[in-house]
């Protein structure tokens, strides 16, 4: 007998006395929240010691340039389909850069798919302006642009907007560890600096 058949057989015999009718999951937890979602998002992202900056649609390139200068970021990589005027001096990820090239870059600028106000989370789904997952991982600095219409209140609202079959990365603040005496330290293996630029 194959391992598959044997395990499935063990499960069926273990459950022989169990009522197989599907349990209905009660979903009377909070589904959505009202109010100033953008303000809450900004507050909660900042709570993770990420830098949060607000700007308007026509001043995005200036706001990005200001942040790159502030953090001393020289070489920047961007997804090929990021608006070209956002970071004019950037190296685009087309054809895809190899890992040493990503490692040599100072930082990366991307868009995102969804922002979650309550948890201060941004979600990347490899959609427009986001590229593949390695891009936002290897460089030590990540600036992420979030449009206000991408911000939802809660995790259930985000799950409803996202496609589970795309590769997703949920980011809540910069890389961090609490493994040493439970002291939070920013920056272990992922980007140590996260800047969230809210547009709108």
């Amino acid at each position: 007998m194959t391992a598959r058949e044997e395990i499935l057989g063990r499960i069926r015999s273990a459950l022989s006395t169990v009522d197989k009718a599907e349990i209905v999951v009660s979903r009377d937890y909070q589904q959505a929240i009202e109010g100033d979602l953008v303000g809450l998002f900004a507050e909660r992202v900042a709570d993770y010691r990420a830098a949060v900056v607000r700007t308007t649609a026509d001043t995005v390139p200036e706001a990005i340039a200001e942040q790159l200068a502030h953090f001393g970021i020289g070489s920047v990589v961007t997804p090929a389909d990021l608006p070209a005027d956002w970071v004019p001096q950037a190296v685009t990820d087309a054809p895809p850069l190899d890992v040493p090239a990503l490692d040599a870059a100072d930082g990366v600028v991307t868009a995102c798919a969804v922002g979650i106000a309550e948890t201060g989370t941004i979600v990347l789904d490899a959609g427009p302006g986001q590229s593949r997952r390695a891009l936002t991982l290897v460089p030590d600095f990540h600036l992420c642009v979030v449009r206000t219409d991408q911000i939802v209140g809660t995790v259930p609202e985000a799950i409803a907007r996202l496609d589970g079959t795309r590769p997703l990365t949920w980011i809540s603040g910069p890389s961090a560890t609490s493994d040493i005496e439970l002291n939070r330290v920013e920056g272990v293996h992922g980007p140590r600096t996260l800047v969230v630029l809210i547009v709108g």
Partner: protein
Amino acid sequence: MTGTWLGMPPFPVAAREALGNEQLRTNLRKATGTIRGKRAAVVDERADWEALRVAGKEIKDRTLHNLDTYLEQLERKVTESGGVVHWARDAAEANRIVIDLVRAAEADEVVKVKSMATQEIELNEALAEAGIAAYETDLAELIVQLGHDRPSHILVPAIHRNRSEIRDIFLREMPGVTAALTDDPAELAAAARAHLRRKFLTAKVAVSGANFAVADSGTLVVVESEGNGRMCLTLPEVLISVVGIEKLVPTWQDLEVMLQLLPRSSTGERMNPYTSTWTGVTPGDGPQEFHLILLDNGRTGALADDIGRQALRCIRCSACLNVCPVYERTGGHAYGSVYPGPIGAILTPQLRGVTADEVSPTLPFASTLCGACYEVCPVLIDIPQALVHLRAKAVDAKRGKPSAERTAMRVAQWVFGSSRRLRLAQRLVSIGGRVLGRRGRIGRLPGPFKGWSGARDTATPPRQTFRTWWESR
């Protein structure tokens, strides 16, 4: 499940030794106290916490009651998305599959994301025997690996180490580290970053576990903080994930519950820094070869037990460890298993079998039954109920041998059977107690009473029984 940690004594012996370690108790008291406070604060933020717990319980019960159906659905979805699904009856089979896959990729080393399942099957040891080096990349796991140590906590495996002990380990074991390294946590983390960077950028094969697997979409989920998970899940060419068969949730929507319960319960955060999800293989993004190993290793045994089954709801948040008065004083090593604390006390004996070794039957007794673990469990596992149930199983398993409890219960049954015998017995106890007791207390007793009286004093029986007092009114 593989046997107990080699030479591990039963819990009472291991616990007594741990209690004598002042440094360990200080480290643990500080760490568990900190995390209890953080968890309480973020849970209090949620007015709907109880509703989330109920939903979490129902999602996992729905999974377990129809586990065969959901596993087949997951297998279909992962395969359709370009992944390969393997099934492993036990630790040896799972390890063999991993070793064959690493060899097929012509690699002699792997990077690893922290995973309870691979610790449970002792994969690192099996890989080492096969000549394959495994590099743990989670900071705490790295501390444990470099310290030639055992993990002692589900979430923070090196919780028993303080910063100066960690500095000493790095100084001794990490190439390139000099005496200039201080015990500042930021500096220690930076040393680990530099140490592992090259491995991440060059590794060909990664091994992970998963926090959740979604049946209706075929999606795997890893929840982490440091980015080492993202590194392993994204950069290598081949990804191998070893996942317990109970890790499923039926639908994509179910993640909305789990991703709220898990971070708040485990690290006391609204959300952990990084969550990665992937479905099979995505062309041009991440590993182009993905293998999912579905692991039984004793889980179907637990599934067959009506009361014990609820332990399989566990999402490995470790909240129960952090509130347990027994864990706080003994630490995780005393439990002799990768799953310590209250959840380990009910999960380990079920995965191994309650009489499989010397440690397992003692674990259900490693509790005061205070119920704090049930109060914090995000998926409402009634750990005290399961503990009592497994205690009965452990005692039943010893039946046939005349035990002190059994003899005592037989005598008690006979005594309570008649009011005359009870009256006589009470008078004898009253006299006997005064002979044995000193200053109103009975201390250590010989023979079959040694186990009970060795660790506690017993009050001497009163001079007058309730019955004689009642009659004299």
